[in-house]
């Protein structure tokens, strides 16, 4: 049985409304209904957190790079966008809707001018090639790369021997390409497929499908699992020392980053705290700066616990500092009230404005 959109909307509303009202029952007093919804919330949040960790982090960023070739599509060969000199064949194809048909006898070379530009991570090029009959010729694959200004400055070349009939998946390692000029794999511009004389003489028709460049399997990511597993050795007394290795490494790394962040974030604030208390010709800025400097000094003096607050100057400053802190706490409390009301308003707004028969 499938539900229509309206029914799903109504059910969603009532489930959400029941959850909201269930939680708000605690305003009257602590009760079982509140506990029930509280546990549902915790369960849903934990489940969602786990699911999203798997689907958005572990699977795409760890598992797939480890077990797949990490292919980036250059052309699916399902349309002629970017291709020059070729035609589309929807009948003979290996993957997708169509393949690129290249009549070698008629046109000596075809080009694809819309590849993804950055191939810097690529280890090899992979594509499907179809030949009607074996020949002694080859397809020369040439990749043009440009410099920062966009001008083509370098070429990579390799060949695919067409000594087969039917489909064959071809792998061309980037390291095995011959290089000419200044090759920059961060700015690839064109891929050209050219037939050599023997292939032209053979007069075959070549089909190309699903061209992609691949990084290859990152098997070494399995080490992340090993490192992560070290955390759990804490539960085995005999191997608990191993957990300290990974905890130490992560703490060291994080400490370094935190220190760097502290310097980059708070040093400008310290520098900005040193202000002139008299700005010629600008009364409001002078007043602002005086208030700022007085507040800063008084609050700092209040937090000097190693000096006994006996001397009148220290005692008075510390007292002013405490009063100023109270003002700040009042400000924070006011903002907290505003924040809590906002969250409540959002729920009440949802309950009323989203009511299915009011919308």
């Amino acid at each position, binding site marked *: 049985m499938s539900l229509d959109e309206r029914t799903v909307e109504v059910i969603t509303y009532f489930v959400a409304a029941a959850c909201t009202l269930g939680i708000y029952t605690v305003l009257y007093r602590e009760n079982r209904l509140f506990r029930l919804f509280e546990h549902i919330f915790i369960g849903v949040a934990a489940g969602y957190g786990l699911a999203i960790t798997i689907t958005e982090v572990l699977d795409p960023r760890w598992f797939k790079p480890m077990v797949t070739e990490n292919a980036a599509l250059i052309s699916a060969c399902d349309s002629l966008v970017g291709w020059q000199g070729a035609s589309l064949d929807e009948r003979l194809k290996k993957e997708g809707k169509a393949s690129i048909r290249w009549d070698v006898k008629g046109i000596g070379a075809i080009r694809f001018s819309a590849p993804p530009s950055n191939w810097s991570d690529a280890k090899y090029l992979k594509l499907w090639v179809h030949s009607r009959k074996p020949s002694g010729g080859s397809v020369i694959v040439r990749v043009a790369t440009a410099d920062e200004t966009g001008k083509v400055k370098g070429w990579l070349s390799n060949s695919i021997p067409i000594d087969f009939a039917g489909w064959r998946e071809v792998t061309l390692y980037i390291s095995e390409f011959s290089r000419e000029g200044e090759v920059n794999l961060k700015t690839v511009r064109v891929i050209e497929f050219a037939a050599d004389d023997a292939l032209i003489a053979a007069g075959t028709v070549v089909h190309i499908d699903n061209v992609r460049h691949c990084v290859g399997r990152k098997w070494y990511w399995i080490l992340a699992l090993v490192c992560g597993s070290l955390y759990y050795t804490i539960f085995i007394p005999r191997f608990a020392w191993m957990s300290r290795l990974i905890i130490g490494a992560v703490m060291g790394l994080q400490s370094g*980053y935190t220190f760097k962040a*502290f310097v980059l974030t708070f040093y400008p604030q310290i520098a900005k705290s040193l202000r002139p208390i008299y700005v010629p010709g600008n009364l409001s800025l002078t007043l602002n700066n005086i208030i700022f400097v007085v507040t800063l000094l008084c609050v700092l003096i209040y937090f000097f616990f190693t000096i006994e607050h006996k001397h009148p100057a220290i005692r008075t400053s510390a007292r002013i500092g405490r009063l100023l802190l109270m003002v700040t706490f009042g*400000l924070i409390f006011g*903002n907290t*009230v*505003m924040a809590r009301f906002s969250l*409540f308003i*959002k729920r*009440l707004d949802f309950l009323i404005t989203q009511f299915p028969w009011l919308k």
Partner: protein
Amino acid sequence: MSLNRLASSTLIMLSRFQQVDRRIIYALVWVLIGFPIVAPYIGVRLPILPMYPTRAARSFFEAVESIPDDKVVLVACDFDPGTLGENGPQCRAVIEHLMRCRKKFIIMGLDQVGPTIAQAYAEELGKRYGYRYGVDYCNFGWITGGQMFLERMCRDLHAAVKQDKMGTPINEIAMMQNVRSAKDIGLVVEFTGSGLLPLYIATFHAQFGVKLAQGCTGIIGPEQFPYLDTGQLSGLLVGLKGAAEYEEMLKTVGGGKRTMLPQSAGHLLIIILVLLGNLGTWAARRAERGMRV
């Protein structure tokens, strides 16, 4: 009855303000906040309160307006449903502004749910402004790794992010072809209810000179002003009020401005309750001392 006894009984009566049943307060809050929301549905027309944008909000608005056309905006949604009431309207208003200005933007978040919420806003508003996914905006989803990730992203975005939330390789997203590092990002806008701003300051702003603007919850609002003062933040929206100010500048009525009346009613109630509570405390003390009013 003597004057003293009258004063004493008045003090005792006033001191009861200290012990008002919290359920009465909750009921008052429900009624005062609920009524302005229900009012339009029962035929009562209530005014939309005027808003006066603060300098911090105006700076935010101007920072968005001044983004160069060849740069994109990074919309960092580091919030979850817990602070949706405040960060949601802020995020929606800023996305609407970006769409009006025809700025391309990238959604991401250091929180699991934030990017999903922002995606819903972008899809809804995108229908009105003709924004297409992949061409005018994209969504990187939930990002893990904190500062380390942000730093790598600033240096080489394509190396740090391989695919978007839907699993599409970054290389295949049209708008990402010319966005390669922090130098292609004109502004980072962060919406959060937690203290994640230093991560962005330490990376995007301090190391790569990218402008930052933030929409934060009311609770952490006071802590963020020093960043504005030092120029580390180019603009700041605080709480639901910040969203309402932004809507005022956009000349639109959204979740911010529409809810300013119930918000103000709630604040008024709290002010009255605080005054009554203090009156109660004062009365109780006087009654204890047995002094005359």
